[in-house]
């Protein structure tokens, strides 16, 4: 795979390491705007081709190389630039256009522009906080591509346990694992006690319906 990462900051650093691990034989190209950062990137990622480019020049690069690129990861420190580059990548028919957000509040704006693969590095904060602080219901993960949802529910009442049991017995597409208060892991309701937690995985649409039913 031929992947272009734009940017030389924090997000680009993690993106480059991840891509090397996912696709060790692939070709990685990195574009940055300052000589200092290009020098650092060249030393840090010797497996990548690192290019110095002006801000406007990146768009030209994407257009000229659109036919040979498989993926573009916009990972600059400005969401404005990420949006600009993603739009050009989409217009150039590059199969995968991915943006790493600097500000989660821009998600809707990117979606409206047709950028569907958006990585929000901050999305883990509410999830992990609510897990740590013991929130009764958590969305742990939403996959961007397959619309899969992973969620957890604290089984705090007998009524909730019964409702969940009923819903799960009717939905074969949902998988569940239960963790008891003492930390034992099981995949049957039989052994679960109140105060434990259920972890559910399934199609987003179906699982969201179940969560609604259980919440009532």
């Amino acid at each position, binding site marked *: 795979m031929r992947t272009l990462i734009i940017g030389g900051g924090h997000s680009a650093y993690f993106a480059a390491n991840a891509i090397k691990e996912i696709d060790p034989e692939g070709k990685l190209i990195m574009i940055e*705007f300052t000589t200092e950062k290009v020098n650092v990137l060249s030393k840090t990622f010797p497996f990548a081709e690192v290019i110095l480019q002006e*801000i406007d020049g990146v768009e030209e690069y994407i257009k000229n190389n659109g036919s040979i690129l498989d993926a573009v990861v916009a990972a600059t*420190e*400005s969401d*404005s630039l990420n949006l600009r580059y993603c739009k050009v990548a989409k217009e150039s028919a590059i199969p995968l256009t991915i943006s790493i957000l600097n500000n989660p509040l*821009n998600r809707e704006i990117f979606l409206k522009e047709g950028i569907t693969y958006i990585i929000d590095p901050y999305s883990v904060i509410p999830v992990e906080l609510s897990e740590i602080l013991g929130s009764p219901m958590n969305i742990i993960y939403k996959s961007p591509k397959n619309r899969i949802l992973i969620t957890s529910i604290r089984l705090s009442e007998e009524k909730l346990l019964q409702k969940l049991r009923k819903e799960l017995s009717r939905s074969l597409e949902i998988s569940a694992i239960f963790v008891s208060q003492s930390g034992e892991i099981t995949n049957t309701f039989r052994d679960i006690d109140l105060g434990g937690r259920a972890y559910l995985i399934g199609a987003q649409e179906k699982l969201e319906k179940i969560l609604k039913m259980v919440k009532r």
Partner: protein
Amino acid sequence: MEVSVIFPTKNREQFVKRAVRTAFKAKNVSEVIVVDGGSQDKTLEVAEREGAKAIVQSRLSYPGKGIAMRDGAYLATGDVLVYLDIDIKNMTPDFVEKLAEPVIEGEADFVKGCFERAAGRVTELVAKPLLRMFYPELARFKQPLSGEIAGVRKLFYKVEFEQGWGVDVGLLIDLHKLGARVVERDIGYKDHDMKPLHALTDMAYEVAGAILRRAIRDQKTDPQWAEKYLRGVRTIDLGLESGGGFV
């Protein structure tokens, strides 16, 4: 030449409609951009409805005006950028045209707007004395902190934007240093709410910090002297602990 008008703003829902419509009426304007600082009101929604390009600034740390200005420049596609405060009550297309004209006519690369109003307190008590000390060639500007500016878009990509209130004076110094032709243009009377005195404290610190950081960078003052001079004013980050670096 196409002009992009940029409004860095936050929680100014009531001004957005009029400002965006007015900007679109000005000559050569091809796009209007609203960069939002994380509003709680409908600033973004109104901006989009009025046909402006809208984006939330990449960092939300207060005050972040400089980040909003930078993000506006990065989203823009026009040849000339015009920045305006969104809450100018008497805004007309003339404001945009007066600022953009010297750039379009090829007379200037960067234009600072000046206007009639009671003298700005941070301008008179902080910015002007410090500019006179370190950058006397820029002391002629009546409103060095004016947020009403215009310039060649690509020129803005060659300088670093201060994150906060120091951005306007920072751009003035850096673009001048870069060799840009900088002029001041009178845009007339500006009807604009003035900030209460207590709200100017942070602004004054940031403006002073922006000028002093550049004075150190440009070797116009001794970093140790500056630190001694400013001892006690801890909010001014001169980057001395990290080796006198430029932020």
